[in-house]
C-alpha cells in the first residue's frame, strides 16, 4: 500500500436500526485489503461506537476512514449539540442517552471509553451548539 485509501460514509441519523452499516462495510473493505483480523476488529468496533453516538446524540453525521501504510485513521464529524464535559463523557458508565436507547442495550456509558480502548490515539474536538469531531488512529 503505497497510496492512502479513503472511504467516506454518510451516517443516517433517523434510523437507529441501520446504524452500523458504515462500520460493517469498513470491516469488509479492510478484510479485502488483507489486514490483520484484530486490527480490523479494533477499527470496526471503534467506528461502530462512534456511529451509534452520532445517531443517538447528533442526528447523524459523516465518517471518513483513511488507510495509510502504518495506521488507519477514522474521522467522525457531526453537527450535533456538542459534548459539554469531555472528561466526564470519557468516564465508563457516564451516559446521557435516552431510555428508549437503553432498552435496546445501548447507552451504558461505554461508547467513548470503548473507542479509546480500541484505538492507539483519540482526539475529541467539540463545540456546544456546533458539533463534534472525533479523530481516532489505529496503528497497523
Amino acid at each position: 500500500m503505497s497510496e492512502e485509501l479513503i472511504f467516506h460514509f454518510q451516517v443516517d441519523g433517523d434510523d437507529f436500526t441501520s446504524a452500523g452499516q458504515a462500520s460493517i462495510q469498513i470491516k469488509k473493505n479492510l478484510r479485502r485489503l488483507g489486514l490483520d483480523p484484530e486490527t480490523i476488529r479494533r477499527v470496526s468496533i471503534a467506528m461502530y461506537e462512534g456511529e451509534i453516538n452520532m445517531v443517538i446524540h447528533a442526528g447523524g453525521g459523516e465518517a471518513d476512514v483513511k488507510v495509510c501504510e502504518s495506521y488507519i485513521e477514522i474521522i467522525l464529524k457531526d453537527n450535533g449539540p456538542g459534548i459539554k464535559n469531555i472528561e466526564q463523557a470519557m468516564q465508563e458508565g457516564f451516559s446521557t442517552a435516552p431510555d428508549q436507547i437503553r432498552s435496546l442495550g445501548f447507552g451504558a456509558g461505554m461508547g467513548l471509553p470503548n473507542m479509546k480502548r480500541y484505538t492507539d490515539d483519540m482526539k475529541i474536538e467539540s463545540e456546544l451548539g456546533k458539533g463534534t469531531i472525533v479523530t481516532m488512529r489505529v496503528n497497523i
Partner: protein
Amino acid sequence: MTVYELSQNSQFNVLTLPEPEREINGAYVGDLLSWVMGRAQADNVWITIMSNINVIAVASLSDVSCVLLAEDVTLDNDVLATAKEKGINILSTSLAIFEAAVKISGMI
C-alpha cells in the same frame, strides 16, 4: 469445538448457521451491547437475552463465533434474515444464562 459441534447438543437449537465451522474459544455473557463490544473476544460464544437487530451488528463487529439466545428468547424474522445475510451464527436454548454458560464451559 466448532459452532456446528455445539449445535449438535440437544440443549441448543439452530436458528441460523451460515458459518458452522467457526471455532469456539470461550464464552462471554452480557446484554449491554457496548459492554459486550468492549469485553468479548473474537471467537467467543456470546450468550445474551437481547434479540434486536443491533445484536447482529455487534456480533459481526466483535467477531464472535456465535450468538446464543438463552432463556427461550426468540428472534424476529427480519433479524434472522439479516443474520443469515451477514454470516452470523445464532443458536437458542431454554437454559438460563448461567446454566448455558456452565454447559458450554464443560464442552470446550
